[in-house]
């Protein structure tokens, strides 16, 4: 069943009331062969909500949750390391559809953007059942059962940082994605998890496992030498 939300509040209300529901933003995960959302029975389409666009105010860059990865990549307002992370999605067709909010909310261990947004100490503006809240990206990311809808990301204007992606090919699942910004490090490690903190050893909090991208030993080594 497809429900087209007319407001963020309605979307969140539907998400709470419908068992087996999920938000549909760009649709690249929902529709993808082998999707992690293949069990979803109730689709809450938020794609027509006015949540896209990038603006700058008060020293903060606001990136709407429905902003596509291509728009993130192309915007000169967005810190360079976050733009570079958006380009880790190597297909133009995917970047034209996938959204920053969708990519972050999926909490994948090979997420294109999670490490950059976490290291960038972004804030996340959310619509919850209680209304709008602002949380740190890290806090949102840890709360895996959260049914809130991301409205936007806020990051310091001109924030500097670095990102690295190690994967076999541009389109393969990345073994390790790391980001560093102003002393904050974040790592997404395939098949294992994501972690961030003000230490280059932040990855040590992840239970790193073997998978198709490489052995646990290899990924631990990579995480230790990325920065």
């Amino acid at each position, binding site marked *: 069943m497809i429900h087209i939300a007319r407001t963020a509040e309605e979307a969140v209300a539907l998400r709470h009331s419908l068992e087996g529901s999920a938000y549909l933003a760009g649709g690249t995960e929902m529709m993808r*062969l082998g999707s992690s959302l293949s069990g979803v029975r109730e689709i809450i389409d938020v794609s027509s909500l006015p949540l896209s666009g990038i603006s700058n105010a008060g020293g903060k860059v606001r990136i709407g949750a429905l902003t596509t990865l291509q728009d993130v990549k192309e915007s000169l307002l967005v810190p360079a390391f976050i733009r570079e992370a958006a380009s880790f999605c*190597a*297909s133009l067709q995917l970047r034209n559809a996938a959204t920053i909010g969708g990519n972050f909310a999926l909490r994948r261990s090979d997420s294109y953007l999670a490490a950059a947004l976490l290291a960038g100490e972004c804030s996340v503006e959310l619509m919850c059942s209680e209304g709008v809240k602002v949380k740190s990206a890290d806090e949102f990311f840890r709360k895996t059962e959260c049914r809130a809808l991301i409205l936007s990301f806020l990051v310091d204007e001109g924030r500097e940082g670095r990102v690295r992606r*190690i994967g*076999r090919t541009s389109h393969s*699942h990345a073994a390790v994605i790391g980001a560093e910004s102003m002393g904050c490090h974040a790592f997404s490690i395939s098949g294992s998890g994501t972690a961030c903190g003000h230490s280059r050893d932040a990855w040590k909090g992840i239970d790193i496992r073997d998978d198709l991208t490489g052995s646990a030993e290899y990924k*631990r080594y990579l995480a230790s030498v990325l920065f």
Partner: protein
Amino acid sequence: MEARTTINGRSVLLQGREDERLRDALYRAGYNTVRDSDDGEGFAGSDTIIFNGRLRYSNLIMLYQAEGAEIRTAESLRSAQGINDVQEAMVKAGVVQSAYNAPAAALALTFLLEGNPDPTKEDIKEALSGIFIRDAGYEHYYLAVDMVREKRRTGSISLEAGPSFRSSLRYVGKPTGKIDGEALVAGDRLFVEDKVPPHTCVMHVLRSPFAHAVIRSIDTSEAMKVDGVVDIITAFSCPDVYYMQAGQGCPEPSPYDRRLLNRTVRHVGDRVAAIVAESDEAAAAAAELIHVVYDPLKPVFTVEEAMADGAPLVHSGIVRYVSGAPDDLDEYNKAADPDDGDVIYQFPLHADIRHNIAAAAHGGIGDMEKGFAEADAIVDETYQTSQPQCTPLEPHVCYALMEGGRLVIHASTQVPYHVRRIVAKICSIPENKVHVIKERVGGGYGSKQDVLVEDLVGYAVWKTGRPIYYRNTRAEEFYANSTRHPMRIRVKMGGKKDGTITAIYMDVRANTGPYGNHCLTVPMNASSKTLPIFRVDNMYYDLITYYTNIPPTGAYQGYGAPKGYFAIGSAMGELAMKLGIDPLEMAKKNIVEEGYMLEILRGLGEGREGAVVPVGSCGLREALEKGGEMIGWGRKEDSGDPDWKIGKGFAMIQQGSGLPGLDQGNAQVKLLTDGTVLVLSGGADLGTGLDTLSAKVAAEVLKVPLSVVSVVSGDTDSCLFDTGAYASSGTYFSGNASLNAAKDLAGKILKEAALQMGEKEEDLSIEYPGRVVSRSGREIDYARLSHDATAGDGRGQLIGTGAFATPNFAIPYGAHFAEVAVNVRTGEIKVRRFYALQDAGTPINPELALCQMYGAAMKSIGHTLYEDLVLDGDGRCLTPDFTGYCPPMIEEAPDDFRAVLIDVCDQYGPFGAKSISEIACNGAAPAIAMAIADATGVWVRSWPITGEKILRGLGRF
């Protein structure tokens, strides 16, 4: 639901389920350029459209989301005036080959140029970043964009898509574009899926969850009750006919070790039941209701497991021989399990299925002991290759129906005549009851040499009388299709300090998986296409192929040669390093040259005694020297970053041009009543330009414009027999057949003209554009000649017929050079430069030849560095999609990538031509392995060469 859309500027109401993929609705509505190569994975890009002003994958859009949308498909690129300038440039540049997603690429580039008339290389890369090109590589797409720019600036295109050869010829050796290029890039209805009418039945295949099991029973009674289910075929109801799926010349050097469905399943994904139904939904519902009782057996997955004492036997049935049965066969069969199914050899292949050995061969020349005794240094290393999958963008597909009491099969195949023979055998009907129509092939690369779906569909249609369409899912392509045979190859090589190689020993252990498709020929190519490049007196090989329970293997561009070259090329590099000499100088010291007698071929005849022949035309030395100059061989490069080390490597390579003594091509060339020409070629053009080659050959001989020559090929009713497009046979065998047919027609034209003109035949000659002239000054054009020949008082239509079979070899040679950068801290690998230099004789279609070299080299780079079909401990495929399997995309293409044609003229090929594309798969693995060793000191001896393996070699963890 109905979605109101605007498609290509017109209002269109799309109908379907609201959550249906938009691609499916578009295709159903007639937008057939919107194809599907990945079942909605969002990878291959055949489904690309412009959706509300953005390039998108239509598979990842639900139909309801298209409400009110502005959509553009590749159909918008064509107008009444023809294709657009981007499409024209793509044809001219040679990138339109198998072309399954050529319309999508044309759409992406057109869209790019609309917004950015002067794109950079990076812009073009981005535009093509989501489109998987497997056949032609990406290099000439940049050229195509340059051509568009030039045409928009000057009104014409002067850029050449490739060099020209043989100035005395008009079409042969000239980049003319494919004769079917316009239709392919425009997206005409040329593929099998485009031929399927509504209300055609579908087929679903229920597959084994076990790698090895006996099926005790199958209960289909509940499934048959599902509305719309027509029939269910199982091992208990299929014909008791043994055959094999390799499309090889008959008698085949592969065992008949399977039926359509078998009581023993031998890999995860093996066929259990074929459900014929009137809808996908009915078939899927029926599949859920089939009750199968399995007795699981212990599987074996590797050569080591298969050869172990007491290993489980993949085949334990009765062995039979059509000829050459050993004297002790009855004794041998006493241990057989008759329920397991027969294994029938057409002739002995040194097999021993009681030890999982499907085939074996041994032989050599000289004195190995003496050779190694003379060596100053010896390397003895083992190299392991993986199981790459061909990944044609169009998966295996078949549509068949009964028509006038005959079985008509629309196939995407490289071997239409083998399909006819094999399907006729399974149905127990004569070949005249089967008509195979080879449609355009959206990528073959060897996997469509194997008859993997036509057998089952053909039989089901014959049995039920219903038209049936079947298409593999992408996942089925990975686990129930053909792949490269994994091989473990030990090479022992000895050499002197002066660079002379004194002896080479190859021990090839190949893994054929559950069935013996190509179990002799592919592994044999690991030796038969590598050892003959060496002028070495002492060489010996042992080849043993084992049955296991991995997904099926079969033909793949290059057969065993890419694996053999990885091993022998790496070993030569290691030996040179050990001796402290330059490997390129070592290579040049030990290569064959024209006239050298290839004694080593005596034992490498694919199941029969091989012919000892001299080396013919050979551009190998030139390729090595020129490639060395291009890459700056011997000059150490410095990245300026201590983490990034740069190294260089090379490989010397050869292949064949078909199978002399085994292959045969046949063709007819007809003069039509208006003086135009129709070529009927048995050859199967799988996108490589074989039809264009046939047309050029005919135009050249008959001295007519290329535009008046049309080609029909691969239709078993219309055309004459051809063994098929494999083993690099197209140019040499099918091309020579067309040449001979054209020559025959030319002779008949002169004879008929002499009669009509009242002149002596010896006074007549053929002249461009299609006329016969006499020394006396009189002339007659072909239109008049043909009209009068076919008139009521004429002597009949002029038709030339040609066959080609030969004992002579036309071996292509080449050298590939690679420069890589390796990050010794992170293991990242980048192929900075790759130069492929090949001697193709006279390249009849030079631009297509170059693109095939790029495409094959890219595949080979993929196999070397990225691609990996991974199984779990139970034999289940863990990489049943592109993202997991990791083929290279445009981002992985070398920064500086060049293909160079070395100019030699062959003695036997049509107009001096030899084969082109298979050989190009042979160079990347050894060249890259050597370059990585040069950069890091680490030899990685297994595919894929990953960063993790290099880091381990460096002792980083």
